[in-house]
């Protein structure tokens, strides 16, 4: 068959998850990426935007424009999509607690561009439930959060029919340690919780409900075990189809189709020998493309250097080119499904389905996903899985090339440049953003703003759909922080279970562990009381897996651990350390704002007379910054390279020993 007679499938949507510094800088990046053949946009918002704070809020310090673009008001949103006609764009927004607000801004910008909002296409992630388990950008308690989610779904189904109102995420569950079975079970249980809530809200007439089911899409992860991952996606398709048919009575086959977008694994990307991540990413992409019947609708690939810091435009281009080569150069899109009829694949799919159904039954027994999250059950299960994974990496049972085997390497030319192979954050961006925000606030019609916020409050209290007053707020020039503050006042704020109260399962002491325990005990005796360690997560970054693993390991090693969960201010951390009389403070920061946050915490400690408490930090911290932190008095910096947890614990003991005038232990 000659190439021009072959009918090829249309390629998936190709995106790159991006956004940084400011709306203007991100807009330039988007237009450059579209010029390179990207076919959709995937907007990364910064943490203040995701957690509902204006750029000049104290909690936002150091976070503005770091992990994404700051959007304070309609002016920012307009600049973000400058010269990008929204009726011709498919935009995915990774936004959850503040999803109704960002969609409202998007609608308001479309109106300003003269685009009819009903023509908009794209996705709001809008899955807050997984934020309680991983990632951590929730604001409100589960019940009002589910209500906001359902309001957005009900609104778009009627008014923006081609919008994907929610992306139920199993991606972050895998990041938090979920096994494929757990991913399936918890994502589908979340979908049930959301769909039931929409149905019970009475906002959609029963005869229109199939349209709601048809608009639900998923956001999935694909790890390095790509055969099993392929099977996971086939299992997802089968389970979803069955659920749509049996639980929700959807007749139209098209509305029962499992639609998903994907970002492949960033959990498995390594900091050591980072060039190996390129082949990892490619293999993981195969998991979500090889099987035509379980192929992704949209793919975004991470850059090879994400475990080192922020990727540069060239790194992102490389990720996009991987997709283009697979879709355009290979013959993959010329064939039907490669796996139909394979007994090996089918058996694995059945095994995953059976496991997932059993776990879904356990969740249902507890009253459903919301209850199982509130009770801490799901989080605990995830922490157990993640702990097991970390133990297997440590023991070498789970091999990671360049990390726990084949560690010898030649000098990498990729990281040898002056920028060490990553993008340097623009330190001026935060100050510029704040100045622009304050100017914007001063230039508004305050009466219009106040009245729009009153309408919003009335809807929040009274139960009317939140979208229309949110869109009115967007037009009026309300800010992200103001919109969120009204809802915080009405709904309250929430702190999720940390899941670290897990049983000491199967931690039969290895020799290394016994040695660490002996060191902890001996040092405690020498200092008169058991060693105490405060694990703090300052700032808005909610990626708490690392902090949780250290907390669990520390407890197993015999430390008394004080851990208060995510999103703490420097002052809260300093005061808790003092009140609790800890011997050491361990911080975890993955958002890139480590320099600012450490500086603030050191200042707070000094202020309350606890300046002599030793401090360590873990996170994604470039070498240059690590040197700066150590010079500034931080005792140790740990990065994803450090996988030997016993060695980390032994190091902590010695830091405490040296600090208290004791000799180091071997």
């Amino acid at each position: 068959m000659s190439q021009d007679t072959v009918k090829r499938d249309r390629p998936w949507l190709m995106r790159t998850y991006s956004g940084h510094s400011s709306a203007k800088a991100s807009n330039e990046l988007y237009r450059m990426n579209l010029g390179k053949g990207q076919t959709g946009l995937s907007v990364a918002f910064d943490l203040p935007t995701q957690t509902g704070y204006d750029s000049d809020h104290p909690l936002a310090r150091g976070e503005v424009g770091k992990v994404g673009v700051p959007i304070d008001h309609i002016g920012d949103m307009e600049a973000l999509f400058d010269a990008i006609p929204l009726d011709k764009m498919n935009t995915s927004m990774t936004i959850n607690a503040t999803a109704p607000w960002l969609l409202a801004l998007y609608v308001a910008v479309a109106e300003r561009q003269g685009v009819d909002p009903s023509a908009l296409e794209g996705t709001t992630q809008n899955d807050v439930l997984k934020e309680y388990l991983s990632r951590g950008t929730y604001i409100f308690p589960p019940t009002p959060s589910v209500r906001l989610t359902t309001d957005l779904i009900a609104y778009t189904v009627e008014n923006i029919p081609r919008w994907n109102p929610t992306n139920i995420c199993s991606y972050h569950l895998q990041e938090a340690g979920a096994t494929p079975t757990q991913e399936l079970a918890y994502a589908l249980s979340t979908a049930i919780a959301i769909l039931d809530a929409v149905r019970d809200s009475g906002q959609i007439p029963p005869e229109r409900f199939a349209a709601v089911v048809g608009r639900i899409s998923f956001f999935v992860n694909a790890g390095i075990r790509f055969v099993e991952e392929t099977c996971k996606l086939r299992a997802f398709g089968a389970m979803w189809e069955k659920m749509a048919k049996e639980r929700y009575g959807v007749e139209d086959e098209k509305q029962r189709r499992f639609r998903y977008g994907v970002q492949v694994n960033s959990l498995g990307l390594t900091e050591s020998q980072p060039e190996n991540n390129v082949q990892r990413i490619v293999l993981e992409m195969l998991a979500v493309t090889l099987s035509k019947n379980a192929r992704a609708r949209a793919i975004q690939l991470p850059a090879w250097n994400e475990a080192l810091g922020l990727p540069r435009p060239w790194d992102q281009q490389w990720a996009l080119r991987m997709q283009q080569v697979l879709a355009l150069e290979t013959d993959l899109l010329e064939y039907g499904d490669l796996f139909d009829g394979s007994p090996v694949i089918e058996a694995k799919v059945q095994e995953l389905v059976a496991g997932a159904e059993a776990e879904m039954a356990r969740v249902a027994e507890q009253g459903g996903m919301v209850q199982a999250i509130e009770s801490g059950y799901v989080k605990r299960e995830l922490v157990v899985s993640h702990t097991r994974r970390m133990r297997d990496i440590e023991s070498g049972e789970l091999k990671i090339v360049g990390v726990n085997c084949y560690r010898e390497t030649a000098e990498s030319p990729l990281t040898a440049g002056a920028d060490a192979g990553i993008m340097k954050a623009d330190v001026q961006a935060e100050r510029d953003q704040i100045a622009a925000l304050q100017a914007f606030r001063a230039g508004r019609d305050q009466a219009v703003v106040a009245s729009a916020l009153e309408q919003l409050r009335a809807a929040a209290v009274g139960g009317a759909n939140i979208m229309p007053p949110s869109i009115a707020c967007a037009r009026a020039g309300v800010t992200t922080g103001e919109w969120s503050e009204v809802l915080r006042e009405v709904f309250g704020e929430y702190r999720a279970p940390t899941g670290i109260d897990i049983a000491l399962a199967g931690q039969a002491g290895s020799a290394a562990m016994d040695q660490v325990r002996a060191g902890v005990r001996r040092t405690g005796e020498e200092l008169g009381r058991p060693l105490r360690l405060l694990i703090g997560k300052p700032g808005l970054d909610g990626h708490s897996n690392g902090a949780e693993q250290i907390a669990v390991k520390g407890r197993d090693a015999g430390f008394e651990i004080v851990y208060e969960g995510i999103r703490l201010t420097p002052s809260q951390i300093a005061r808790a350390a003092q009140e609790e009389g800890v011997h050491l403070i361990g911080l975890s920061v993955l958002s890139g704002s480590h320099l600012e946050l450490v500086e603030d915490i050191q200042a707070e400690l000094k202020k309350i007379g606890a300046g002599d408490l030793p401090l360590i930090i873990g996170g994604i911290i470039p070498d240059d910054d690590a040197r700066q932190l150590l010079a500034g008095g931080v005792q140790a910096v740990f990065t994803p390279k450090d996988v030997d947890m016993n060695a980390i614990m032994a190091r902590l003991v010695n830091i405490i020993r040296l600090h208290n005038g004791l000799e180091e232990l071997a």
Partner: protein
Amino acid sequence: MTQPAPNLDPVALAAAVRRGERAALARALNLLDDRRGESRLQASLLLKQLQAGQAGDEGHLIGMTGPPGAGKSSLTAALIGVWRRRGLRVGVLAVDPSSPVSGGALLGDRLRMKTSAEDDGVFIRSLACRGEFGGLSAEVWPMSLVMLAAFDVVMIETVGVGQREIDVSRMCDTTCFVAQPGSGDSVQFLKAGILEVPHVLVVNKEDMGAVARRTLSELGTALGRVHTDGDWEVPVLSASATAGTGIEALADTLAMHGKALVESKRLLERRRGYRAQWLLKRLQEEFGSHGIDQLGGEQAVLQQLAAQDLSLFEQHQALRQRLLATH
């Protein structure tokens, strides 16, 4: 080898604690937690200084106990809110169990008690209860004395139906038991006399509706009697920490019990009794039951201690001297 303990001037430290200085409080609590010999001596000196010139009836020490999941920490957080609005300064000792294998512990109660970080009128110290046969660590009671010197209300919060619950009721002025709606355990335990009868019972989560009301009425029938230690009639209250209902009434009732103790002049007597119990435990730890026998047995020691008007420090020293002399 042990590291020499830091030298703290007990007079200055006690004064700073009384002024409510947070750094001093933290240091004092660390000292009381410290098991090195010279630290114990310093700790005794600190307690003596704190006692000096005080009537001994300062503050209100409240024990909060109940089964896991009953919502004690959320209720404590809600009470802190009420007390702060009433202008009272609050100290909390939150006790979490520790692992029998590693001795390690996860102290997570702060998470649920989260209040404003900037409030100098609240101080929370978490404690691992380190074995001690399921009971409270010996350090808890002296720590509560330091807290009482600095705060108007001090709360000891602990999980437990069992030894810890009994321990806490034997060191606090007022004991409050938090019951979980729908769980019959507490009622059964109370009926069977396994629970030390608390002074105040509260059914949390009244927003659960019928099931909470049923537990409330079961508890009412199970008790419906006067407390063993006087004419206090044990109230059974209903509240919801999450909905914020019934909290003011709970705070009022706890305060009323404290006031009744002061008015009937039983507070000092009770606190002296606790002190005697604690001293006995300490001596047992150091000299074994054999030592106590040498002093004439538990009852004799307790009576003797309760009759004396000496400081804790002086009592402890006197008894140790007697025992050391006989060895």
